[in-house]
Every structure is written in C-alpha cells, then in structure tokens.
C-alpha cells in the first residue's frame, strides 16, 4: 500500500467516523459507521488480512450494524434536538481527546525504527492472513480463549432474550 492509496482512504475513514458522532439522526450515524467499517475492511485487505476483512464485513457491517438499524427503525427514533447547555462539555471533551491523541502518539512519532518487527516493506509469506493460518493459531495457542468465547456468546444470547422479552403473565 502506497501513500497515494493510504491517504485518501484514511481521510475518508476519518470523515465518515466524524459523521457518526456529528449527525443528529441516529440512522445517518449508523450509515456513516457502516461506511467506516467497510472502508476499514478495505484497509485490512491492503494489510494482507483477507479473512479478517471478510469477517469485518460479514459480522460488523452485515450483522451488528443491521441490528443497530433494526432497533433504530423499530423504536422509530427521531433526530436529536441540539442542546445549548452542552457546549462546555463538547469543548472539554474535544480538548481531552486531543490531549489523549497527543500523549498516545508521542512514542510513535517519527519512523518505524523503534518498533519491533520486520517492517511493512518486507515480503509476505503466502499463508499470511489465510483462513488456514488463522485457524492454526486459533486452535492451538488461543484454544482456551476460543472456548471461553463460546460461553460468552451463550450468556449473551440468554441475556438478550431475557432482557428483550416482553413480560408473560
């Protein structure tokens, strides 16, 4: 990936991410988030993470965000009314965010020299990012977290059903 593709792509990602938090209508926010996630999937493809990119679209854009849209439409939410008294909070939050960004970026400013690893320009083995490679790692080194995840999903399913169910009797 060259700068010529990276810069426009990341600019689009940032614009749509801003759209998520600045749009007053939740549906428009959700759509901006969908575009952001799709563009991130494109970026994953450039980073040789093909399976993760496909999962990003199937799970995030195809399922999670559709659930968001479904709930927004089900509840028939209207656009938010802007509130004047929140201006101070907005300024404070933005300032805090910028300070955090500065602090978080401080160690990374400059080149990749300080980062451990082989770097972005080296050759990529054929198996990198394939389903086989991820599966290998997932079922050997990460097998315990993987099994715990299944319990987590089960609990989430039960919790969602119990919470959203209308009271019977």
């Amino acid at each position, binding site marked *: 990936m060259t700068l010529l593709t990276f810069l426009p792509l990341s600019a689009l990602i940032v614009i749509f991410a801003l759209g998520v938090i600045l749009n007053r209508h939740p549906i428009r926010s959700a759509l901006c988030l969908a575009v952001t996630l799709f563009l991130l999937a494109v970026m994953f493809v450039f980073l040789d993470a*093909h*399976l993760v990119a496909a999962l990003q679209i*199937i799970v995030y854009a*195809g*399922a999670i965000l*559709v659930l968001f*849209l*479904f709930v927004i439409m089900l509840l028939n939410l209207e656009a938010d009314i802007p509130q004047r008294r929140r201006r101070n909070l907005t300024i404070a939050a933005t300032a805090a965010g910028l300070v955090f960004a500065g602090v978080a970026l401080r160690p990374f400013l400059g080149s990749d020299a300080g980062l451990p690893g082989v770097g972005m320009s080296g050759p990529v083995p054929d198996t990198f990012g*394939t389903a086989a490679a991820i599966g290998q790692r997932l079922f050997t080194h990460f097998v315990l977290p993987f099994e715990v995840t299944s319990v987590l999903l089960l609990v989430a399913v039960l919790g969602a059903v119990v919470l959203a169910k209308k009271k019977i009797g």
Partner: protein
Amino acid sequence: MLIEIVIILVKILAVLGMVMPLAGALGWIERKGSALIHDRIGANRASIYGFAGAGLVNTLVADPLKFATKEDVIPRGADRLLHTIAPCINLFPVLVAFAVLPFGDVLLVGDREINLQIAPLGIGVMYVLAMMSLGVYGVVLGGWASNNRWSLLGGIRGSAQMISYELPMGLAIIAMILTYGTLDLQEMARAQGELIWGWLPAWGIFYQPVAFLILLVAGIAESKRIPFDLPESESELISGYFTEYSGIKHLMFFMTDFVEVIIVSGLVSTLFFGGWQVPYLYSSGFEFPWGASIALPNIAIVLLQIVSFTLKIVFFCWFQIMIRWTIPRFRYDQLMHLGWLGLLPIGFVNIVATAVAILATQSA
C-alpha cells in the same frame, strides 16, 4: 501488465454481459412461467408478428426504456440523498459478488493460462457471503428514506428476515467448506471433477444433500421472493420497501431481485452441482467410465464448461421461478419459525455430522 488488465476487463464484461441480459430475460420467463403454472394464457401481448416468443425482445428493450423515461418521484419529507442511493446500494453488492464465481477451468491462449474466474480470492465463498450480507442495506435504506409507513414496515421486516436467514446460509456453506477443505470456489469446482465408485460424478449434492436444501431455502429467503416476500408483500404493504420508487430506481430494485436469483443459482450450482464441470469431461477430453474416450481441443472443452455452467444456472433460475408460483406466502411467525427453529438446528446438526464423518474417513 497491460495484457493482464485487458484479460480481467474482458472477463468482467463477459460475466456482466451474461448476467444482465439473463436478469432481464428472467422478467419475461417469470411472466410466461406463471402463466404456464396457472394454466392460463399469459404474457402474449408483447409479440412480434403474432409470435409471442419474440416478446422476450420487447421485454429486454422496451421495458428498460419505459422505466428510464418515467418520472422519478421522491415523496415529500423523504431523505432525498438516501432515497436516491438506496437502489444503488441494493444492486451493487449483488453484482460484485459474481467476481468469485468460476465459470470455467483454465483457458489456454498461446502459452498463457487464463483462469476463468474474475477474482481468484483465497477467501472465495466468504466473499460471496459478505457481499450478500451487504444487500440488506438497500432494503433498510429504501424502507426508511421513503417516509412512508408501508416502506418502513417493509424495511424492518426485510432486515429481520435477512439477518435470520444469513445464519443457516452460513452454516450450509461451512458444511461445504468442511467437505472440500478449501474456501476457494474454483478449487471446490475442481474437486467435483472426480468420480465416486468410478461412475458417479463427485458433486456436492451427493455428499451434502441437507446443506443443499438449507442453502436453497435460505437463498430464496435472502432474495426475498415468494414464499418469503414479506418485506414487499403487496397485499399488506403495497410494495414494501420500494413502494415509493418509480422510474429507473424502481427498475434497479426490480433487477436486484433477478440478479439475486442468478447469484443464488450460481452459488448452488458451484457448491453442489459441479460448477462448470461436465460429467466425464477432463482437461484432455471425454473419458467415459466404460472405456471410450473422445479427445477435444482446449477451446472446445472450455466452451462446453461455460455452456454447462450457464445451463445449470438457468435451470436453478427456472426452479426458483417454479417455487415462486407454486407455494403461497408464509405468515411472519412461520417465516421466523422456519429460520430459527427449522433450518438453524438442522444446519448445526449437519455440521457436526459432517465433521464426524470427515474424522472417521480420515482416520480409517
């Protein structure tokens, strides 16, 4: 470098040149088929010199022209931007999903081997699943942006239905991934060129009949056709999520319906019916199990494969049209029951059974 790009462009044009006219023709086949199934005379108004079969030409030319020249109405209070892009969002993902469907084996031109598949992606079938899961956005957006209660209800129904049926679809595809041990659709199609017991083509349907049924039912539900057309059920919701669409935008929703029929047919034929495989046809020619053999040049073999894939797709398109005009629409609770209590558990059991069978055959 330039020649590579030209080859890819030719492949893209060839696939689109097959898909778009077929989608248009399906509109006519559907009217004609419904008349046949209803045992009535139908679809004979558009004819050339009294020959109704030529009405197909009218459907392909006159219908799009009529749609294109109609007024494009955007209702008051609608979200103009979203109302306009919703049909595009609906059509685009389904069209790009064709990129990974292989329509033939390797074509030899000079000393160059051309893989007859637009994009040989390693994640192949996952890509189709991803694109089909994006199709729901067009429905949701069209329903919401129209500022119409019927549209909104259609959009809500559509989103719930498409999420629900994506799960059994994914489960059926996982069973096929287990069977072939690859995600690449071209590899899957090649694996189906072998023979069982020396005479039966090793098509997926013989290994995974249950997964085939699940995928077909879920596929029809994903394309929102009768008996699963609750998002647009005209007796309750006028036209559901595209009630407020006219002109070329309506045509795009209309086309999406048929392109989805074709992609489901393509997926089913690739996964379960050998894709481009012709029984007993190998890279050198026919080799029949009773010993006879016919040698064929590469170009003839490739043509036979493309024709075979096209015929399979057309057959399944016709099959879906037949289902549409035979089975009445489900009630909404029946739809959800079928998805969550019928297909989903069957899909899970099928995966476990497949995994056990594969373990047993591998260790034996």
